[in-house]
């Protein structure tokens, strides 16, 4: 860790956290390393974007940060408090400080409750001394905050559109004035026109309340719009970590290149040939050496097959876990030289 990293005013520090699952029978000895030795920092008031394909472990990592799951090893420190070693009263305070918005707007709301009941529930639990009138006033404020109207308070989720339900989820997450909010694919299930509204709303709320976000998504264009710092995850590891400029203007990991190349081009921009990955192996055992080697254009090299590359700094604030970090052009050139 560099001095610059320590100087940043971080709200959350993740120290070599791992979460391994043992599926099936105990004796089978199979281990899924959903999150494998990940370290991260989240700076106050900033957005950390976490991108990767399904199965990369990004949601598991997000759940660990919120103590919705327990790590196999490692620590999470939230503003000086060790999240997994906290006392019940500390934990109660922590729960108010960190909130989450899920992907599926309908599944994450209780369809038997009204919008008012859903949004006021965190207040009922954590601020039981509030009177009913005061709670209603707070709900009305929250509804306005997320762009809904007072008429929505008595409605049930089924009467709302997907975008409106997602606004209710956001209002519920903000009810206790948290400092940290996880947005787990929060706009992936809503329509394009609504997605833009929600993204703008989230950026606006972040500014007003100095919120710190962990923005989990598979959509690179969305993460670029939302996050100052971006971590690319592959099979439980962070393979590239850097500022928005680092990641989008000078990406260095072959997996990041491939993700960028397969994102749909901007309207009117011709899609250019980019880094293409080999097919993912069907087995759930990790490759030896670099875990990305079975899909990497350069993965047949012997160092890639034997040595697991650590995250190394390639430029200020830009880290890559690859033996041959380089630009897409030079990677393509090397790959075609090797193929011939």
């Amino acid at each position, binding site marked *: 860790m560099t001095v610059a990293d320590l100087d940043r005013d971080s709200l959350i520090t993740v120290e070599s956290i791992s979460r391994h699952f043992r599926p099936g029978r105990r004796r089978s000895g199979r281990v899924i390393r959903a999150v494998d030795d990940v370290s991260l920092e989240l700076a106050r008031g900033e957005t950390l974007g976490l991108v990767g*394909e399904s199965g990369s472990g990004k949601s598991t990592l997000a759940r660990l940060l919120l103590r919705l799951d327990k790590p196999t090893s490692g620590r999470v420190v939230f503003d000086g408090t060790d999240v997994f070693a906290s006392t019940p009263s500390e934990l109660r305070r922590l729960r108010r400080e960190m909130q989450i918005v899920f992907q599926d707007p309908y599944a994450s709301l209780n369809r038997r409750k009204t919008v008012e009941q859903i949004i006021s529930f965190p207040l009922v639990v954590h601020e039981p001394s509030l009177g009913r009138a005061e709670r209603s006033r707070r709900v009305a404020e929250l509804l306005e905050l997320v762009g809904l109207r007072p008429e929505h308070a008595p409605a049930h989720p089924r009467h709302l559109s997907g975008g409106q339900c997602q606004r209710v989820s956001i209002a519920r997450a903000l009810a206790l004035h948290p400092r940290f909010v996880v947005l787990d694919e929060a706009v992936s299930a809503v329509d394009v*026109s609504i997605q833009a509204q929600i993204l703008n709303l989230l950026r606006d709320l972040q500014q007003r309340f100095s919120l710190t976000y962990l923005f989990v998504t598979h959509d690179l264009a969305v993460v670029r*719009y939302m996050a100052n710092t971006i971590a690319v995850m592959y099979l439980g590891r962070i393979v590239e970590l850097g500022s928005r400029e680092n990641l989008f203007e000078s990406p260095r990991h072959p997996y990041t290149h491939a993700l960028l190349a397969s994102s*749909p081009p901007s309207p009117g921009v011709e899609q250019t040939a980019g880094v293409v990955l080999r097919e993912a192996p069907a087995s759930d055992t990790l490759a030896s050496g670099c875990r990305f080697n079975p899909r990497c254009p350069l993965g047949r090299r012997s160092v890639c097959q034997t040595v697991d590359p650590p995250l190394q700094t390639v430029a200020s604030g830009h880290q890559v876990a690859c033996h041959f970090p380089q630009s897409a052009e030079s990677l393509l050139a090397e790959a075609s030289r090797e193929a011939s």
Partner: protein
Amino acid sequence: MTVAATDRLTETVLAVRGLEVEIAVGHGASIRPVRGVSFEVRSGQRTGIVGESGSGKSLTAFSLMRLLPPRARIAAGDVYLRGREVSRLPESEMAGLRGGKISLIYQDPMSSLNPLQSVGYQVMEAISAHDRVGRREARDRAIELLRDVGLPQPERRVDDYPHEFSGGMRQRVVIAMAICANPDVLIADEPTTSLDVTTQARIMDMLAQIVAERQMGVILITHDLGLAASFCDDIHVMYAGRFVESGGAASVLQHPTHPYSEALLESICHLDRDVTTPIAAIGGQPPSPHELPSGCPFHPRCARAQDVCTSEAPGPVDVAGHMTECHFPIGGEGP
């Protein structure tokens, strides 16, 4: 190229005229989520229907397949499959065409495969539904098809079960089943929505190759304008049950003439946009078919709306080679 081959290229395989779909909502009331849709698909042509959820795009696809939900029915219009009207065919005859002449790829590959049967069995079943072939030949053809759709080592994987495949591989199996009888028309309803971006790009490339080789007419149903633009030759933008703009894919993208198409394009969060300014989002919600706005259905969300838009539904006009349903199209004789 011979004259005959050229003819086949430009042959109209599907023609839809004034299609309307009605759903009974109880107490004798009904709604019309599809309100007069007309278009044609030629062999080898890739057509996109782009719209948000609730715009009627999936119902359009289901009505072409005659797979509408129980309370829904085709209320008006004709569907010609290679010149033959099929919207009023008895179900027994339609069953022979479905999967044979016209087939559908669903969004979710897990729910379109039977988890209790091997993928090979399911592809073989699709083959024997349209062709009288022996077991051995069906199996050989299944393996060939799985190879065509890019499944690695198909002779080894043919007896595996759906849960042993990744999402992308499952979708390849579903595509193999859909193309096994060489249909004239292939409908792909959000085929890659549930897949990762890297997988999505590869599946779309494979699909493009297959339809080019077999000269199928393709209808891609999607909410993703970017995907439609990169895959399709022509695009229909659907809003509140009607095509509000139709034209060449590149042309619609670069010079949209309907305010909705333009707003939709501007609201996309794409990789090259400026991150310091907010995205130009479309305000409000897409209309519900239960309470359609009067006049032009887009007027409550439209920045160009005038008085006439609230009272009169716009008819189709030709602007810059696009069909547009707008009183004040962009690039037309403006307001």
